[in-house]
């Protein structure tokens, strides 16, 4: 049943979406087509699906390593942003071109994400500060840093005063894989991340220690598996993955820096991780599904005249349905009058 609940959640979200369309006076079957088929009916559509799925899957795999150990990194959005700043800054202001530029950007992005994730890890392990709050708040700090840079020192002098950096040179961009689309070599990094994530969690002793820490902390302490180490590994894995996703945006579809580096991939990836049951293979599929939600949200604006909030609405509905399905797989709702309930408790 544990594996059925994501499917139930997806199904319920679809039903919810159709009801919403009916309520908004749209033809539900046309809407269903718009949401599921039309975004991926062309080669370009499929490539866009993969481009959007790439950061989601990448980040979710990194987060899952921490989540398995009960390390709750909610700061992937900020770590992605810092990864974009580090890699973009390297290409714009340090090294200008050469074959080593892109590899250097990849490393810089991963390091940036890890630095940003190291702050909550340090505060948690040194002062027992809750990593959920710290990592979440650092998202806003990272966002403000990016805004400051793009509105200030890094603004393109020839950009007609638009808030954007100079475009990156060709050496700083991932090569395009399929001509005529935006699909680039960044997706290969995602495939590697999925395989590495699966290998770490399922085959290595470190992965086993992380899982034990998440399942039963007293057992981990009894066995002598360090919680501090689990926090560091969990946070840094998420940070590195999110930083790489930042590189993927800057060196991929964006091609330059804007005041916002991501349309909420860092948050959506949390849903992707849970929808994929924290397993890298599951995340591969849930990431593709979440990417479809992004695309169908855009299609809904164009073809159905629905507002742009549709994507966020569906993401929220999906998370809600997943949480509900997970709960109701394990519990039954009993309707009881207040008096009988009181007796049961006493």
């Amino acid at each position, binding site marked *: 049943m544990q594996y059925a609940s994501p499917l139930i959640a997806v199904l319920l979200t679809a039903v919810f979406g159709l009801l919403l369309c009916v309520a908004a006076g749209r033809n539900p079957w046309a809407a269903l087509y718009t949401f599921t088929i039309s975004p991926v009916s062309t080669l370009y559509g499929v490539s866009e699906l993969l481009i959007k799925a790439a950061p989601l899957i990448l980040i979710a795999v990194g987060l899952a390593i921490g989540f398995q150990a009960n390390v709750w990194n909610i700061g992937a959005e900020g770590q992605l942003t810092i990864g974009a700043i580090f890699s973009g800054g390297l290409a714009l202001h340090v090294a200008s071109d050469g074959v080593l530029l892109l590899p250097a950007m990849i490393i810089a992005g991963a390091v940036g994400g890890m630095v940003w994730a190291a702050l909550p890890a340090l505060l948690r392990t040194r002062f027992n500060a809750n990593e959920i709050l710290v990592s979440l708040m650092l998202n806003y700090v990272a966002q403000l840093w990016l805004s400051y840079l793009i509105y200030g020192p890094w603004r393109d002098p020839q950009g007609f005063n638009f808030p954007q950096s100079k475009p990156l040179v060709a050496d700083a961009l991932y090569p395009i894989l399929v001509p005529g689309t935006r699909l680039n070599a960044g997706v290969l990094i995602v495939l590697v991340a999925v395989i590495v994530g699966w290998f770490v969690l399922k085959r290595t*002793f470190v992965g086993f220690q992380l899982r034990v820490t998440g399942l039963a902390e007293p057992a981990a302490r009894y066995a*002598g598996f360090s919680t501090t180490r689990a926090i560091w590994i969990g946070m840094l894995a998420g940070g590195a993955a999110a930083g790489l996703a930042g590189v993927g945006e800057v060196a991929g579809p964006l091609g330059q820096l804007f005041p916002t580096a991501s349309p909420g991939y860092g948050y959506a990836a949390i849903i992707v991780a849970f929808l994929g049951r924290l397993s890298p293979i599951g995340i591969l599929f849930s990431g593709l599904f979440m990417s479809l939600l992004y695309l169908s949200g855009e299609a809904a604006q164009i073809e159905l005249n629905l507002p742009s909030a549709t994507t966020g609405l569906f993401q929220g509905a999906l998370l809600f349905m997943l949480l509900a399905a997970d709960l109701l797989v394990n519990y039954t709702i009993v309707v009881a009058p207040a008096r009988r309930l009181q007796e049961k408790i006493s």
Partner: protein
Amino acid sequence: MMPSDIKLATSPSAVRLALRGITKSYPSVVANDGIDLTVEAGRIHAVLGENGAGKSTLMKIIFGVVQPDVGTIHWEGAPVEISTPGQAKRLGIGMVFQHFSLFETLTAVENVALGIPGRSDLAALSSQIVALSDRYGLPVDPGRAVHSMSVGERQRVEIIRALLQNPRLLIMDEPTSVLAPQAVQKLFGTLRQLAAEGCSILYISHKLDEIRELCDVATILRGGKVTGICDPRQETASNLARMMIGREIPACRHAPASTIDDPGRLTIANLSVKSDDPFGVDLHDISLIVHGGEIVGLAGISGNGQRELMAALSGETLADEPSSISLSRVPIGSLGPRQRRRLGLCFVPEERLGRGAVPSLSLDENSLLTANGTPMVQAGMMQPAKIRTFTERCIATFNVMCGGPDAAAKSLSGGNLQKLIMAREVLQQPKVLLVSQPTWGVDVGAAAFIRQSLVDLRNAGTAILVVSEELDELFEICDRIAVIAKGRVSPIRPVSATDIKDIGLAMTGLWSPADDTRTPAEKGARIAN
């Protein structure tokens, strides 16, 4: 057999509670299978059975926590359906659980008030508590916070809470498992007084001697069925045991320790640890030596620092002074559990599910929890084939009943899981083995097996430290014995030089420095490093 020499407050033949044909099935097991039980007014009625015999399910049915699939319940002659504990209380049924349900931060009277529907007048309730406590010899200070109370006091709070409802049937679930022998006698006095006043008592236990001393009638359960009804005072312990487990209780083959191998294998010298838990127990200046080839027992009522001491010895909490714990003269006080295990110190904790084993993981993965050196892990990679071999060896050597190495730990019965954990630690050939409550909640057959395996391990030269609340067990397997009370450890004595009465007295924290028979070396043992 029904003894008729008991004076009853109500009419002599009054039947207070009658169960007929009670059956309750769970998906994997029939917990109660056609059980009949008749409790007369003013009688102390024992329900005797091993773990898993169906005692708890039956009590839950009587107290309205669980509904039977089949069968009828008659309360004082009238058929009833008991669907909630609240209803059971209104009928006049009270229950004192084995694991107390008290809020540590609240006072006794506040805890009692929580069990009464509606708002209570705490002052009036306090005087009621004092009155009850005088009447039944249950000293309780209503204004004291529960966390500052001993286990015995907490149990008295629970009993008073049940008595305030004026029960006509009081269910006591394994009440003596937390008491020192002297406190047991006081509890028996209270229960006899209650029975003389007409309150029926259902007394759940697996301790034969207590039942023979206290109870008028015994209903014996085995495998969910009634296997006998008798007057326990007329039966021998071995007769009762036969009805309870279907055969004689297997005795442990145990010769005195032959050779001391490596004196001072585990040396604890002036160990003091402050507990992190505000309701924990601080350890004060503990010194204790365990030689290779002997079993040292540590008796004591739970909650006197056993948990903290075992955590300090296993490495789950670190000692301030590295040399306060040493293994074969190597200071290990500052090493973590994995480093200590590499030096040969293994540990069987009292909590099996969630600490000794991860419930949702397979037995293979649970092997890896502590048996994770070569060849199970090589270059950071798990070696599934090697792990499988080790798990299969654990299962075969200790005769663990399970669905194979892929079964989840939570699918095993308590006894089999304990055997598996013991096997995992024993097969690592430890130099020192720490065992906490080795047979707690384990059926009699598995308990005998576990004790025997400890003795065999001792004979192979391992130094073993056993913490247990069961004095009989300690006297059966130990070579030397000490008591832990309020975070201090009493002078250690050879088992032959002490008896249950002495140890029972020491469990209350009373021992004089003159009792100290340790050598000066032991007293001040501190290994130079």
